[in-house]
């Protein structure tokens, strides 16, 4: 985006306000990406901060001819998340589908709120739990396509794989997600 490039130039010129503006434009997207991967709000905030520190340190290396700033940002965030996933793999070995369903059921329903909010929260929690059970490759493809709403070409750039691979991962990811959600629903009710 032209606006991002303009902000980037001002950032490189040392203008603090431009960096703040850039953060305001992109923090929420990066945070959501992190949250979809980890399912934890505090962890996602830490990861978002780490991603932007990396961005800040490598701002000079951004090449606009290689793609949009948002694609570059997503690529850095995705690589950071993959590193994080590898680092914390051991902690997640005990997580099973039954535990995830139990966690969803144990959460208080929040009786004060309208049905729509409750439904939306249930959708979010079920989806989050199901996403966590996908393999990282399929998960990142589905998140970038269906939750971050990137197009196939952008996803291919972010993941560094051909577009055909992206299509295949998204399709397999959705099918797997559908199977997991079906199983979870079966266990709940």
């Amino acid at each position: 985006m032209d606006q991002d490039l303009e902000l980037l130039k001002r950032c490189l010129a040392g203008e603090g306000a431009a960096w703040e503006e850039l953060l305001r434009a992109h923090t929420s997207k990066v945070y959501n990406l992190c949250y979809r991967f980890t399912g934890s709000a505090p962890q996602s905030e830490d990861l978002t901060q780490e991603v932007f520190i990396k961005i800040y340190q490598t701002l000079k290396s951004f090449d606009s001819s290689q793609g949009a700033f948002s694609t570059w940002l997503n690529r850095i965030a995705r690589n950071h998340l993959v590193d994080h996933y590898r680092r914390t793999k051991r902690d997640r070995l005990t997580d099973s589908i039954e535990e995830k369903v139990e966690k969803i059921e144990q959460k208080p329903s929040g009786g004060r709120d309208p049905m729509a909010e409750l439904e939306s929260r249930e959708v979010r929690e079920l989806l989050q739990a199901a996403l966590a059970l996908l393999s990282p490759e399929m998960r990142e493809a589905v998140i970038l396509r269906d939750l971050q709403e990137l197009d196939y070409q952008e996803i291919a750039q972010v993941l560094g794989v051909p577009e055909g691979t992206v299509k295949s991962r998204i399709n397999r990811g959705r099918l797997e997600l559908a199977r997991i959600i079906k199983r979870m629903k079966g266990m709940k009710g």
Partner: protein
Amino acid sequence: MNHLEAVNQISEYLEKRLGPATRAEMESHLATCPECREMVEDVRQVMERCHMAEPLQPSPWLISRIIHATTGQRKPSWADRLRDSVRPLLQPRVAYGISMAVFSISFILHAANVNIRSLTLRDLNPGTWAYRANSKGHLLVARAEKYYYDLRVVYEIQNRLRELRNDQDEQRPRMQKKDSPGGAQGRSRQSSMELAAIPGFSRFSPNVGVSDVLSAESKRSLPR
């Protein structure tokens, strides 16, 4: 198109990314394959679910935190932190909870007869609270009981007076014939004796001359 090819193209079919020829092949396969139809429906639901999931909002101070971590500027100020911590309190359920807590506390303080403006050390003793609340409760019950008996007495008096009036109406012709001076007085004396037999009447109105009231009433209602 065979089953495996159809399964591999479900997403593209749902996103309308297939060419017309491939789409037609896909649709003719779906018409004959219930398993694929089910998978298409499942994937469609997953996509809907993803679109329904609202984006999450990070903490408001995250940007300040990142700025501080990158350029070393602008720590989240105390005002920012205070504003962010007060914001959840403004939600309806929290406000409702707080108002209920305030109501309960004020109710307890009132029942325990504690005056916050002139608080003494004795007022802080829960034993005193319990004693006062108990006394207040007993007083309330006694008042309610008295009110109930008062009402009952008034009701009985009204009934008796009504009966007396009826009796007098019936006996009026005879009274006119006999014109006995002690007749009405005798009847009112008898009625006051009946009223004295009402339970609780003498207890709650010991100083009131019921017979006086009744005789006055009888006199008023008697023909002159």
